[in-house]
């Protein structure tokens, strides 16, 4: 071919060769990456659980004729492949970084705020559910004559630390929701204004930055201010100990940000007059402390308090005050109970999400004379277990009443027939 190309033609040809070279290198690089990841996936053994996601991971599905036929094998395999994908956690972190670069502040229901604060977006209360819960609480209180009942609903960080939210973020008004809820609770139940206490507190350490719980300091702030309402005339002093500086909580897991870190502190009464032991009936376990230090080695270090949520936890003390407290709770209470130990003989913690027996039995077995509802607003406004448990207890009580009336009726009949 004669080489009589014009300079433009030559330039065009050169550019084309550049383009071809570029495409070739891109192909080689990306395909190499694909093959490497494919091999890595092939050679890496399957993990059983994900600490980061707090769940078990899908395992390789078995090939069955039925599974192949209805497409469920393919679906399960897709899930298995993505669950077990190599560097999964790192990829999530990368996604988070990508979102940060694009200035996207909401990741998977978690708002990324200032000073590395992460916020769970408050749940919008389910009105029907709320009404049911309020009704069951009121009725249970009415039926529990003689038991002092109190209620403490704790707002999430998004409601209190408004100045740390990302610019112009708007979230449901949980403060108002708590106010509405309280206003429908009967006067016989003493309500603790946690919102006021937390808003007035002058501290940077009321809530964890990477977790949806309040810190021990946040809990202590409420305890100190509300002690009087809890019937504790002279709250004692506590020693503060730091048990961890490497806590990466639930919000980190949810959003994919593993950068932030929190400190966990525990409060121990200064005067060590009161001895106690903790009993976990469902696990048949007894411990000399409410803290489980081994939990500091797992991802969710908040579990250092009691090891998490149990159906029922018994704390028996030598306080000698004659007060026996039943706490109907979610996980927020776990960080609060450490302050209550010197003031009660028995503290029974019941989590209705896991407890299926009769609450009345707890009341009678332990001689409960005080009840405290200690919930985070998010859980209380969206959960059905509390109302279910209280209704079941009320039903059972009504049945017992019927049965005992029946029995009484039979007895009176018998007595009368005997008289004759």
């Amino acid at each position, binding site marked *: 071919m004669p080489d009589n190309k014009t300079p433009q033609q030559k330039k065009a040809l050169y*550019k084309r060769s550049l383009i071809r070279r*570029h495409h070739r290198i891109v*192909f080689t690089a990306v395909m190499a990456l694909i093959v490497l990841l494919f091999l890595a996936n092939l050679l890496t053994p399957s993990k059983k659980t994900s600490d980061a996601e707090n769940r078990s991971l899908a395992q390789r599905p078995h090939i069955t004729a039925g599974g192949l036929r209805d*497409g469920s094998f393919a*679906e399960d395999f897709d899930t298995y492949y*993505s669950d077990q994908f190599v560097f999964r956690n790192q990829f999530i972190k990368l996604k988070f970084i990508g979102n940060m670069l694009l200035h996207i502040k909401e990741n998977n229901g978690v708002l990324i705020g200032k000073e590395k604060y992460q916020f769970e977006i408050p749940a919008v209360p389910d009105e029907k559910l709320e009404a049911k819960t309020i009704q069951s609480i009121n009725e249970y209180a009415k039926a529990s004559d003689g038991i002092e009942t109190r209620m403490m609903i704790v707002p999430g960080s998004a409601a209190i630390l408004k100045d740390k939210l990302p*610019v112009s973020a708007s979230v449901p008004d949980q403060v108002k929701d708590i106010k509405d809820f309280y206003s429908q609770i009967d006067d016989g139940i003493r309500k603790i204004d946690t919102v006021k206490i937390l808003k007035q507190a002058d501290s940077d350490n009321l809530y964890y930055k990477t977790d949806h719980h309040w810190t021990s300091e946040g809990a202590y702030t409420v305890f100190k201010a509300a002690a009087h309402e809890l019937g504790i005339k002279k709250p004692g002093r506590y020693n503060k100990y730091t048990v961890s500086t490497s806590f990466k909580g639930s919000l980190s897991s949810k959003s994919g940000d593993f950068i932030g870190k929190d400190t966990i502190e525990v409060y121990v009464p200064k005067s060590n007059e009161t001895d106690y032991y903790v009993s976990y009936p469902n696990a048949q376990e007894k411990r000399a402390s409410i803290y489980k230090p081994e939990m500091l080695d797992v991802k969710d270090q908040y579990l250092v308090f009691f090891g998490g949520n149990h159906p029922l936890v018994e704390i028996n003390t030598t306080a000698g005050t004659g007060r026996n407290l039943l706490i109907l709770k979610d996980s927020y209470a776990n960080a609060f109970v450490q302050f209550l130990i010197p003031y009660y003989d028995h503290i029974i913690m019941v989590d209705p999400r896991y407890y299926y027996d009769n609450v009345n039995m707890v009341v009678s077995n332990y001689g409960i004379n005080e009840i405290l509802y200690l919930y985070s607003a998010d859980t209380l406004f969206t959960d059905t277990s509390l109302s279910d448990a209280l209704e079941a207890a009320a039903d059972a009580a009504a049945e017992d009443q019927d049965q005992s009336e029946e029995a009484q009726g039979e007895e009176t009949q018998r007595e009368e027939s005997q008289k004759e």
Partner: protein
Amino acid sequence: MGFNSLVFIFILLPFALLVYKYIPKQWHNIFLLILSLFFYAWGSAPALIMILLSVGFNFFAARGIGQHIESGDKRTARIQLIASVAFDVALLAVYKYTGLDMPLGISFYSFSVMSCLFDVYYGKTSAQVEFFDFFLYVMFFPKIISGPIVKWEDFRAQVHNHAVTRDGFLQGFELFLAGFFKKALLADKLGVTLASLLARPQQTVGLAWIGVFVYSFELYLDFSGYSDMAIGLARMFGFSFKKNFDYPYTSESVSVFWRRWHISLGAWFRDYVYIPLGGSRCNRGTQIRNLMIVWVLTGIWHGSTLNYLIWGLYHGSLVLLDKFVIGERLQKVPRRLRILLTDAAVFIGWVFFFRTGIGDAFAHIGRLFGIGAAGFWSRATTFSLTENLILLIIAALCCSPWMKNMHAKLTYKKDGAAMYISVALYVILFVFGVAGILGSTWTSFMYANF
């Protein structure tokens, strides 16, 4: 299976490319067919039977029509054509209008099989339809799920003639990647923010507009991204499919828009409905009728609810307006303004896509102009804007050739570092794209779920 699934990208694709490269040429089409069957059956096994039956029905229909054409019996051919097309349309309609789960890709493969029937009848291709060619045509995995809608005559011309060239292969791969980026990095993220935006209790005028923009870009990037991946893949196996999108948001009129958006669908309706009905070669009244028929069909092809019908009529009316009323006068308007007006008309039309129910759709459109809105702006509106601003800017840049031209200008300089920076960028974007896919499967539980 879809193109942006991990199993496809990391298992099926490398495997397919490798095997295709090393098996003898005469096995190529059979291999592609088996691959396509596997691709379709993965996760859609129950639908496989339906598509196989449809292949059977339409193959014999094409055979029959072809035989009638060959023997000169145009009348019977026509009868059989109408009966077969009617059956295909009825089948599609049954799925669309009853609650039944639609078999994967039925909107697309129905149009493919009908294309074959038409092309055989009109003599565009040989009257003898070869079974394996037809089978591969329908099932061909790059296009089966979301198009483009390739005409039978175009596919037939290449089915025994699709040698892979190095340039074609590499360009195909680039296109595949470009589509992947559009989808996984932009469209998916826009989709996530759209949901929370639309869920805000107080819908302001600002939110209404931001929603429209977010969706308009999401739809374009998602659909054109997927088309790019499809065409790119086909290219890697030697097939050249025409582009399905040509920067539609740079159109200067609605008529032009329809020559740049979902081009394969427009071409299908033009060649198999509009032109046979007479097209533009008749009196104005019939022309209008023909156009409206095409747009009603376009509307209901996209969806089975009233919203889509209204959308189709809306666009049909705009095209009629452009063609018969405004006409040449539009040229007097400055070019940039023409594009803006066209975009406004098109973007507002998309409201019928992302709002289900006519009430919600019209309410949203009303809010665009202040009717029924909870104020002009709000805190939540600012938040939605800041969440989406960068995405929207990047998306807007991708709607015109700017992005591509800028990349070419910066990269293809004399053998400099620019080339390697570009490669690194591609790799990084690819990794981010995979992160995006994995991210959507991330479920974290607050309380242990063991």
